[in-house]
């Protein structure tokens, strides 16, 4: 039986030109993880389609913006696919401003929530998403909260008890001062 490494290589070679390099790692239990950075972000759909044809499953999607990327004016999204126990991560690079990426929902139904989530956390547009509403974060909160420099906890209710406590204490000291 053809092993997963050659299957992935064959599938991606058939879908992308020129071919891309995949870095494979194997842990102490023999579990493999593949890491592949696509040279162009618009290759994502073709690569994902090849993985879908192989019977791959979209495990999750991670968008991220480290400080060093911000300075370089770029950001990345990692798409993690499961291939019967092996995980393949395809990474694409996007510009910091006006980032746009194609939706994977025509290939993977579960891309829906993943894409809605990273759209509300980062300033990234997903082209062709069937339902681009907020997923978790309320509409009243400003968009792309992970892109901002304001601590996220101050944007959500996690900060409300501290704010309330400070308001109560301020009121108390004002009354005691009268």
């Amino acid at each position, binding site marked *: 039986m053809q092993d997963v490494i050659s299957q992935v290589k064959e599938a991606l070679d058939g879908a992308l030109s020129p071919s891309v390099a995949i870095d494979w790692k194997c842990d102490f239990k023999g579990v493999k993880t593949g890491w592949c950075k696509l040279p162009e972000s618009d290759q994502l759909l073709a690569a994902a389609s090849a993985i879908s044809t192989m019977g791959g499953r979209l495990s999750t999607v991670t968008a991220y913006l480290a400080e060093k990327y911000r300075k370089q004016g770029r950001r990345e999204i*990692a798409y993690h696919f499961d291939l019967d126990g092996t995980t393949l991560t395809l990474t694409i690079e996007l510009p910091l401003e006006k980032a746009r990426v194609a939706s994977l929902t025509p290939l993977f139904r579960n891309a829906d929530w993943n894409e809605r989530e990273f759209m509300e956390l980062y300033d990234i547009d997903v082209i062709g998403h069937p339902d681009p509403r907020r997923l978790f974060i309320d509409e009243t909160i400003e968009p792309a909260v992970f892109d901002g420099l304001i601590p996220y906890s101050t944007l959500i209710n996690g900060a409300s008890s501290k704010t309330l406590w400070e308001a109560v204490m301020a009121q108390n000291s004002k009354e005691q001062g009268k």
Partner: protein
Amino acid sequence: MSSYTIPVGPLHVALEEPMYFRVEAQGEMVVGLDITAGHVHRGIEALAMTRNFYQNITLTERLCSLCSNSHPSTYCMALENLASIRIPERAEYLRVIADEIKRVASNLFNCAILGHIIGFDSLFKHVMETREIMQDVKETIYGNRMDLAANCIGGVKYDLDEERSKYLWQQMERMKKHLDEIYALYCKNSFVRLRTEGVGVLSKEDALRFAVVGPVARGSGIDYDVRQKSPYAAYDRLDFEVQTENGGDVLCRAKVRLREAQQAVRLIQQCVTDMPAGPTCIDTPPEIPAGEAIAKSEAPRGELIYYLRTDGSDIPERLKWRVPSYMNWDALKSMLVGDKISDIALIVNSIDPCISCTER
């Protein structure tokens, strides 16, 4: 027939946590569903990027109560994968014991709630009473009834001496009889079957399409368990079978969970018997280089995946996790449509939903 809309939640007597369902109905039938999430979103992923590797072990354990051990153990696995740390063999068995103890308690909790929703409260009490044995086990071994604080980078923070090993073995023997009785009851009791058989069906095709995982997938005939597909800890040396059912209904999902609880008890006993002597943790402070890693585990609700990205400092550049409930929510659209309004709570419970996990 004209359709109408029913709001279910976000606060509802049959929902453990808040989620809003906008249900479209015709007569007694559900014909459409929209889900609005976000009521317990806490921004924990953002917090994780402001805390160091050690602090995040404590933070991730507080994501969820029922699968609280799966989070720190999988997070530690991601760090260990990144740093090529091989944990001691004894620690691998101790991680399995902690995970399986949590699995039994979690699965029994869900099956107990099923009894409560169908109005079979004596069944609810019986299952919860059995689960109490596991709660006592947790309290005795770890000192806590929910968060075990069992994991550290490079191993575990607890050990089992002879007395505790014997106690654990005896409690698992006690569990076997109760679990056999409970499983037979769910399989044979006419009232349980009447309310759960053929209800909330998720076909295998839809299960694949929605990419569901865990007992929800296995209840629809998908033979996938991370413990076998991507072995970790001591699972590659333990004897167990992936539990599946083909009906895809509420009963099938409950049967898979109950059999997995029975199997977890046997796995715990295997670990107690097979566990070698030796250290429980690496003896040097871990050095975490810059890089990225993936770790996966089979939490009680299914595949849990962690992605970790580091820059050479002691704070993650990005820590992302996707919990099993994440996809299972969307699959409710397939399970609920065509079923009765009165079965909504029962079907929602059958995915063993964890909102705290989902929203983070």
